[in-house]
């Protein structure tokens, strides 16, 4: 009697416990972490705002939407810092990380090249070039000192129309530059199936070098401030984040995510080779070109908004693939990329007491270290 009871409970226990494999526990933990992240990440920064304060702000905001209680409407200083500075910044970091990781993951799959990342196709150097052109144009008119500070520090309070113009034109220039390099790569890659991938990669590398050279040339003749400013910009920052700045990147990343999800089967089929994908009804050259275009759009928008944040697009897809082998985790890649970027930005805000570090430095430093660690563990375990 006791034995059967034991058996039943054992069976029940195994039934409850076995369906969750290690991978599933990992996913569960990740989702929980993602839910906590906005609150936790918002409690880091210059102003001393605790975890509970942030939670309180979020709850009162939540109440604000549902019960138009007068008491809930009053906004304190804490609330303004959380809602107008930190939350948009966290969201922008998330969107940027998710977008870059998605782009990297898709590009690695469609080119079947593990080293492909959004910056390999000349997008980042094209964007830098565009930004430098804009900066030097304004330096020429003697307005740079003023404008450069404004463009980088994220303080937009009353400094004339030209400064405002630069703040607007820097991302604009970056976007034009990025698009230009993509167009060159696309034109050279072509719609032929034969050696399309090689043409894409090689023309990307060549375009990248070409724009880097042009950028260096411009910077060589530019003022030291301009050089410093471009350097700062090219390392990336979310300091400019605001709700209005968030709209376009979020929209682009979200729509791209939906498109990638819709074409998931075709993209996965490409992983098995061009010929196999063809026999599964995929128009291979067209799909690859469209995906390059889409990833370029994501990257160009993000580079224009946050500057050049390297290594995320290359590393996150590989990390996710190593952590979740045998899955095709588009959603997970975006999630991990977003979370990674949010916490990198927290580090950027907190590592130095009175100064922010460019996020690009931290992504590269931490990212490569973390990646090597995972790679080593995988190698040992297999």
């Amino acid at each position, binding site marked *: 009697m006791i034995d059967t009871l034991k058996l039943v409970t054992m069976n029940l226990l195994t039934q409850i416990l076995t369906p969750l494999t290690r991978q599933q526990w990992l996913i569960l933990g990740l989702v929980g972490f993602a839910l906590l992240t906005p609150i936790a990440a918002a409690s880091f920064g210059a102003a001393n705002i605790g975890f509970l304060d942030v939670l309180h702000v979020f709850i009162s905001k939540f109440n604000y939407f549902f019960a138009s209680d007068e008491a809930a409407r009053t906004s304190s200083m804490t609330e303004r810092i959380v809602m107008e500075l930190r939350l948009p910044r966290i969201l922008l970091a998330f969107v940027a990380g998710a977008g870059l990781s998605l782009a990297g993951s898709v590009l690695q799959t469609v080119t079947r090249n593990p080293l492909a990342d959004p910056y390999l196709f000349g997008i980042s150097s094209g964007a830098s070039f565009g930004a430098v052109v804009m900066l030097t144009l304004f330096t020429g008119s003697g307005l740079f000192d003023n404008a450069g500070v404004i463009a980088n520090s994220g303080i937009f309070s009353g400094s004339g129309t030209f400064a405002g113009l630069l703040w607007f034109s820097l991302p604009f220039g970056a976007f034009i530059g990025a698009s230009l390099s993509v167009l060159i790569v696309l034109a050279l890659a072509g719609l032929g199936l034969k050696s399309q991938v090689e043409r894409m990669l090689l023309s990307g590398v060549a375009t990248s070098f070409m724009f880097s050279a042009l950028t260096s040339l411009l910077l060589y003749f530019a003022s030291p401030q301009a050089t410093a400013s471009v350097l700062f910009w090219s390392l990336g920052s979310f300091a400019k984040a605001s709700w209005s700045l968030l709209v376009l990147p979020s929209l682009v990343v979200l729509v791209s995510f939906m498109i990638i999800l819709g074409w998931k089967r075709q993209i996965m089929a490409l992983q098995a080779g061009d010929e196999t994908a*063809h026999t599964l009804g*995929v128009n291979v050259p067209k799909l690859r070109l469209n995906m390059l275009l889409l990833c370029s759009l994501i990257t160009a928008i993000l580079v224009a908004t946050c500057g050049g944040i390297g290594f995320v697009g290359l590393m996150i897809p590989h990390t996710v693939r190593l952590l979740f*082998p*045998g899955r*095709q985790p588009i959603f997970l890649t975006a999630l991990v990329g977003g979370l990674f970027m949010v916490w990198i930005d927290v580090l950027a805000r907190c590592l130095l007491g009175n100064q922010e570090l460019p996020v690009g430095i931290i992504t590269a430093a931490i990212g490569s270290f973390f990646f090597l660690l995972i790679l080593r563990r995988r190698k040992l375990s297999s």
Partner: protein
Amino acid sequence: MHTTSSLAPIAPATAYANTALKVSQLSWAIEGKTILSEISFALPQGEMLGLIGPNGAGKSSLLRCLYRFIRPAKGHISLFSQDISELSPKAFACKVAVVQQDTPQYFDMTTEQLVAMGLTPHKGMFDTNSSGDGEKIAKALEKVGLSHKVHQQYDRLSGGEKQRALIARAIVQQPQLLILDEPTNHLDIRYQIQILELVRSLGISVIASIHDLNLASALCDHLLLLDKGQVSAMGTPSQVLTEERIAEVFGVCAQVTPHPQHGNPLINYFYGYQKPQGVAADEVHSHTHQKQGGHP
């Protein structure tokens, strides 16, 4: 009746009531070099056609034309009396499945995911796999005997298992025509036989390029012998596989006798490229003739 002339009894394309595939005057050249020239044949529905020929005869190129990976310079290919160039990539993939020789190195999928790829042409943009699809995949895996390897990484399967997984994917694709490019390459003899028997048992029209002439003879309804891009012979195994033709096309000396089990040609090769003394060649010949006499 059988003749020993080099002209092959090419099956006329209109001879079959239900033609799965009809190829007429197909030619393809690359950089001025003719790879395929004036190839015509027809495949009756539900039959298995073996494509044989020496290396470089154009077997893979012909198959690639059939699954539209390369566009022939000249000629027509029709699938169930519809020109294949009229079909969309998706519609074509719903009708024709292909099993190729190898998969790329950088490939991170479980066996189940690989087999599920066969659903690709049947699915719309945001369609998820239904429980019916899951059953289809499980059944296909069972059919190829890989049910126990469902969650294993495809990379870690053995050569024979990989090939069977690819066939399971083709089964899930539910094609009317299955094209296999050397499905028995790199496999030991047990799997060579097993895979061709498996493909045969599906009951759909099949074209497979096969290197082993004995295997082709035993398991195909018809054979198409390619030589230097041209059809050298087409017909039943006993019509195509004669000592003269094997000598002419493959450049080896062989003895052809009826197989004790199924009566189709059994080929024994002589080493040293010529018939040794003491083998009664005439006797062998008469066997072949008798057998073919029974199959007009």
